């Protein structure tokens, strides 16, 4: 009799646990992008109360006054200017078939950077600006460019320049695949990898404003708004693809191929959580 009572109590406790626990576990695991974006923004604004929200897009230059002054001086003779000029020229030059980049994009490709990446419901995948540019070339019979630098950096620099000041406006459509892509990007951002056991968040959430060797780490909030960038370390321009792959290499991880799904999803996540912050690209970094 006593053991029967024990058994019944245990069963009741288990049932209560199961009924109580399942909904909360599901709630905790269900992606909630607007809540994520708010938490993300709050985290950085509370960590750096003196930095104006729109200033986060200037990366390390937003982290202290000395660096900010350096940035202001740099902007008088910006090192990325040659790339904007080159991109403008490339953008206006027709392909061999007579069409041009403008034919591939809404609003002829002008002032649209803030809407990329977007989730393509037909394809069920994230489309980045770099990917869209190469697809535009291929559909018009032109060979694709490297996703990392040079021509691709010039084209995206010009397009970013035409969007300067416009706030990131990344949308997540009511499509479970879009939410999954967003969640995959978030997971990639927080996952430790490489022999150094670093995630993107290790540097850009846990340690922004601090130095890693001679460099000041940028905050993750607004980190893509300034892309592409001229980096003194690279002695040239680099795209978002270049930034992601070199970050992976620096932590001794083998980078994936540029524009692999993981990187596209990561860009989707990082851009979404910076919604509302202005495009400042192209940028310059130490």
């Amino acid at each position, binding site marked *: 009799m006593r053991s029967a009572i024990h058994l019944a109590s245990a069963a009741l406790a288990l049932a209560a646990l199961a009924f109580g626990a399942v909904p909360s576990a599901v709630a905790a695991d269900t992606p909630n992008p607007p809540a*994520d974006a708010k*938490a*993300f923004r709050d*985290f950085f604004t509370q960590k750096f109360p003196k930095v104006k929200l729109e200033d986060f897009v200037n990366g390390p230059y937003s982290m202290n006054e000395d660096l900010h002054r350096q940035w202001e001086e740099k902007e008088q003779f910006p090192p990325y200017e040659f790339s904007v000029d080159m991109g403008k020229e490339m953008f206006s030059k027709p392909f061999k078939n007579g069409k041009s980049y403008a034919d591939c994009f809404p609003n002829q490709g002008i002032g649209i950077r803030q809407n990329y990446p977007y989730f393509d419901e037909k394809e069920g995948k994230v489309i980045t600006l770099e990917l869209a540019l190469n697809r535009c070339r291929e559909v018009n019979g032109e060979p694709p460019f490297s996703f990392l630098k040079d021509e691709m950096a010039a084209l995206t620099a010009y397009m970013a320049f035409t969007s300067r000041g416009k706030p990131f406006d990344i949308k997540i459509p009511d499509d479970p695949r879009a939410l999954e892509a967003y969640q995959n990007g*978030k*997971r990639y951002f*927080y*996952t*430790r*990898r*490489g*022999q150094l*056991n670093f*995630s993107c*968040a*290790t540097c850009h*959430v*846990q340690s922004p404003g601090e130095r890693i060797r001679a460099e000041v780490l940028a905050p993750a909030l607004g980190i893509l708004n300034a892309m592409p960038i001229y980096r003194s370390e690279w002695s040239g321009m680099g795209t978002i693809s270049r930034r992601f792959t070199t970050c992976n*290499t620096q932590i*001794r*991880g*083998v980078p*994936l191929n540029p524009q692999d799904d*993981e990187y596209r999803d990561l860009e989707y996540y990082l851009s979404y959580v910076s919604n509302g912050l202005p495009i400042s690209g192209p940028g310059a970094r130490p």
Partner: protein
Amino acid sequence: MSIVRKSGNRFSKEIMLKNKSRMLRASTLSLALALLMAGATPVLAADSEVDFRAAYAAAETANKEAGLLRNQWTVTAAALAEARKAADKGDFDQAIASSKEAEALAKASIFQATSEKTLWKELEIH
């Protein structure tokens, strides 16, 4: 006297026979050693090469598994390259050591990828 001489002759004959047998044994041993020395190096090298191939294959398998998890490390690739380079030079001890290092690194990257499937959430901003 003759008996003594006789017995003395017998005694020295025995000694000579013993010495002869000792010398024969020693020379047989030397010959065996020489043969062993002459033949041993290729045998040992062959064993080392077999061991290297096994160690390298194990490292490569582990690194491929890390690749399926999208989490290979650059240092693993470097250790594998080092192993191949040493093997090409015939330095199989180094080749085996580098292969084992590569396998350990690959296994660490697999462990990282597996544990991070849930651990990443601990870093998330809420």
